[in-house]
């Protein structure tokens, strides 16, 4: 059965959609899997047909763009109502992208320049258009500040490969899973170790009791613990309580225990092997990206993070406890690489020369841009693009994939990176050399940065 999908464009350029279409012949196997119920640039369904759909009727809704107009805000809300999963597709929907730079100005300044001041205008008394147009929001608003977003696919645009991977993954999430999958049984039910000697009895964490069956070769049959890759079962195995007891009794994780829990959560609830987008349902990713988004609660005297990924009490408590332990575990490392990890240039450890503007000279292809004096946001930018700009175009990274996991403000992080790279230089000199820090360091993330948006110059009385 094809999956119902909708594509909504808020204020944006359609580049993310174009990046999807750039798959060209690669689209042919995917198109039959999709029932496209809304995509104005491609199919002829009108807005009222989207409004008329039952709530939650559409499985995956892709949103490109930010809220510049009131119509954008309303359309984001409409999509949330109609779609089970909302994907923020691209830098605009994730962080605001370059449109966020408008937040450096008042709405009135923007309107004045466009509708009253530009040089070709000939009207005597030009005004902001108001008829059959939606009106503007005071500033650029991120989609995630209007509605709950389930998946973030960053990039301006995300590469074709990234988008296809996200689509393919989402199709497996909503699909039936492999034919062998049986959610009404657990790995324990057919485990050969149950009689010979359960791994739990030997003190090794094994998650078979929580896991559905259907894998070709069960790991415990080879004396290896089950890490849950066949996802949650609805019928707990015999050893579920014993496993819970073991995890509940942990106060401080040993490195082995931490690695085990992390591996389990990754396979059990995670977006395994696809790390180029942020899926909030992957609680490990969420722990890395937004640790403060979890509430802590007490269950039977134990502190756990308040999560309910499955709706099954025992599983949710085990996961909550595991996340609680990992949250403060110094060994918890969520692999979030930066663009540098895919850059073919020789790495810099300092910036020995004066900072250059990009029109100056021509950088060589073999050396790090920063080392050559050019501003490059690679060190503070989420990997996923394959470092196209430095590798293929001899151009520095502009930061379009946004900050890596755990970094709140890409611009602030870059300033601190630059500070440590330029440690031997005078701070005032560096500050003088950079005339437009917001435009250079927060080009794609200003709307979601700590800078936010311009308030009135005169703050009195506010």
């Amino acid at each position: 059965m094809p999956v119902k999908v909708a594509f909504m464009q808020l204020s944006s350029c359609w580049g993310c959609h174009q990046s999807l279409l750039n798959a060209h012949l690669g689209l042919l196997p995917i198109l039959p899997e999709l029932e496209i119920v809304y995509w104005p640039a491609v199919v002829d369904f009108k807005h009222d047909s989207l409004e008329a759909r039952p709530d939650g009727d559409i499985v995956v809704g892709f949103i490109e763009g930010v809220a510049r107009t009131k119509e954008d805000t309303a359309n984001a809300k409409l999509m949330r109502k109609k779609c089970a999963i909302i994907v923020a597709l691209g830098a605009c929907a994730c962080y605001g992208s370059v449109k966020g730079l408008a937040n450096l100005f008042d709405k009135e300044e923007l309107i004045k320049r466009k509708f009253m001041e530009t040089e070709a205008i000939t009207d005597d008394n030009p005004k902001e258009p108001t008829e059959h147009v939606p009106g503007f929001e005071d500033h650029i608003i991120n989609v995630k500040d209007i509605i709950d977003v389930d998946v973030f696919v960053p990039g301006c645009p995300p590469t074709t490969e990234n988008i296809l991977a996200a689509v393919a993954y989402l199709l497996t999430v909503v699909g039936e899973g492999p034919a062998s999958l049986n959610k009404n049984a657990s790995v324990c039910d057919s485990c050969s170790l149950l009689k010979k000697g359960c791994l739990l009895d030997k003190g090794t964490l094994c998650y078979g009791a929580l896991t559905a069956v259907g894998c070709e070769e069960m790991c415990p049959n080879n004396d290896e613990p089950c890490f849950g890759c066949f996802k949650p079962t609805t019928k707990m195995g015999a050893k579920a309580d014993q496993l819970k007891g073991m995890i509940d009794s942990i106060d401080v994780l040993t490195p082995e225990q931490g690695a085990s829990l992390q591996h389990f959560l990754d396979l059990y609830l995670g977006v395994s092997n696809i790390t180029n987008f942020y899926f909030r349902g992957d609680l490990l990713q969420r722990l890395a990206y937004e640790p403060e988004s979890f509430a802590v609660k007490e269950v039977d005297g134990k502190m756990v993070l308040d999560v309910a990924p499955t709706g099954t009490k025992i599983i949710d408590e085990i996961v909550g406890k595991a996340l609680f332990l990992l949250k403060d575990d110094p060994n918890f490392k969520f692999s979030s690489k930066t663009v540098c990890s895919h850059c073919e240039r020789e790495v810099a450890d300092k910036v020995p020369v004066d900072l250059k503007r990009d029109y100056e000279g021509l950088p060589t292809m073999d050396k790090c841009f920063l080392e050559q004096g050019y501003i490059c946001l690679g060190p503070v930018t989420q990997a996923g693009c394959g470092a196209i700009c430095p590798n293929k175009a001899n151009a520095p990274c502009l930061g379009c994939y946004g900050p890596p996991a755990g970094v709140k403000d890409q611009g602030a992080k870059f300033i601190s990176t630059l500070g440590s790279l330029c440690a031997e230089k005078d701070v005032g000199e560096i500050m003088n050399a950079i005339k437009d820090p917001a435009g250079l360091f927060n080009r794609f993330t200003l709307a979601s940065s700590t800078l936010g948006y311009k308030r009135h110059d005169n703050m009195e009385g506010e």
Partner: protein
Amino acid sequence: MVKEIVVEPVTRLEGHGGLHIKIGDDGKVQDVQFNITSTRFFEKFVEGRYCEHIPRITPRICGICPIPHHITPTKAVEDAWGVQIPTPAYKLRQLIMNAKQYSSHVLHFYALAAPDFLLGPMADPALRNVVYVINKMPDVGAMALKMMDFGQKLCAAIGGKSVHPISAIVGGMKKSLDEDVRDKFLKVIDEQIEFTKKTVDIALKVVDDYFDVIANVGVVPTYYFGMTKNGVHDIYDGDIRIVTPDGQKIDYDYHNYLEALGEHIPDHSYATHMYYKPAGYPEGIYRANCLAMINAADKMATPLADQALKQMRERIGDCPHHTFAYHWARIIETVEAIEVIATLLKDPDIVNPDCKTLDVEPKEGSGVGMTEAPRGTLLYNIWSDSQGICKKANLLVATNHNIAGIEKTLMHVAKQVFEDKALEGLKLPDPWIK
């Protein structure tokens, strides 16, 4: 009772548009509005940015045509700072512009326009789309996808990325093509030329099938705004050419664009209404984009395209006002694009690494850059301060040049449809896809 017809949104275009048509008791069309409901204020928020970084911001104006939005501001800053670029850079830019022209025109013809013709205008709206066309005509679909893929991959090879390229820099290009990459494109260029010829055949068959529609619906005399280089069709470099409704051609140095172009702020659209200033508004409303380019050109730049242009002119005249001839003009431009690509790929300058001048210094002043984007002439005016920071910018973007012309055409067609019942007598062919 005034009857109001609302189309929300207008589909199979990129962007946000709606349509409001008011029809009075007497059956007369009172008003037609083409409402563009989004704008993002790029002209304001590029203020304060480094001038050389504007070409890395403005491609986000359009994901279908980011190449011209990358190249044109680069030209404008070079104009402001008085920078001359090396010949290899000039040719690389020509090549990427034509690669974009090729993929965008093919996308427009097959994905946006063809469903109307192949399924017929009366087909079920739920099926009238490119997905269905690919399903029903897999060979044509695969060919169209291969053509778009070629253009987009060539854009990516030169620009780093096809969507939001990064390789143009004030002073030239960051990098020339690698020889092995160039060779991959050369290997399939003949196949692409064949595909283009097949596309011409399909387009001419559509022209024959729908000639009654082309010749009778939406034939609207307007001015045209295009670009030529000494009268020859050129999408990278040239000057403004205005064509009057009776076919007279008037040339302007593009630096003097304010002499030719006026802008009216309508009350019902965020995209503004452009017009030919000396003729006044609304008399001077013009159209841009491929038909305007074809009407402006004395001749095409390449032989096959020029032959195709002559063929069109023999059939519908030297300055046709037929709105449906836009599709025809687009095909002629597609032919030129692939011919230019074929020539440039064989040019050794394309792989010459000497593609960036070192002689670049910011200078205070105003600079103008102009190119032809796939949906109209694109003009950037950038004011730099002495340190190369943008003080002010004026962006006259491609589609915006067409808004007033589209609304004028819609009014004409609405009258034909609702007052003259013109559709009833039209000869329509059997749809190719039933």
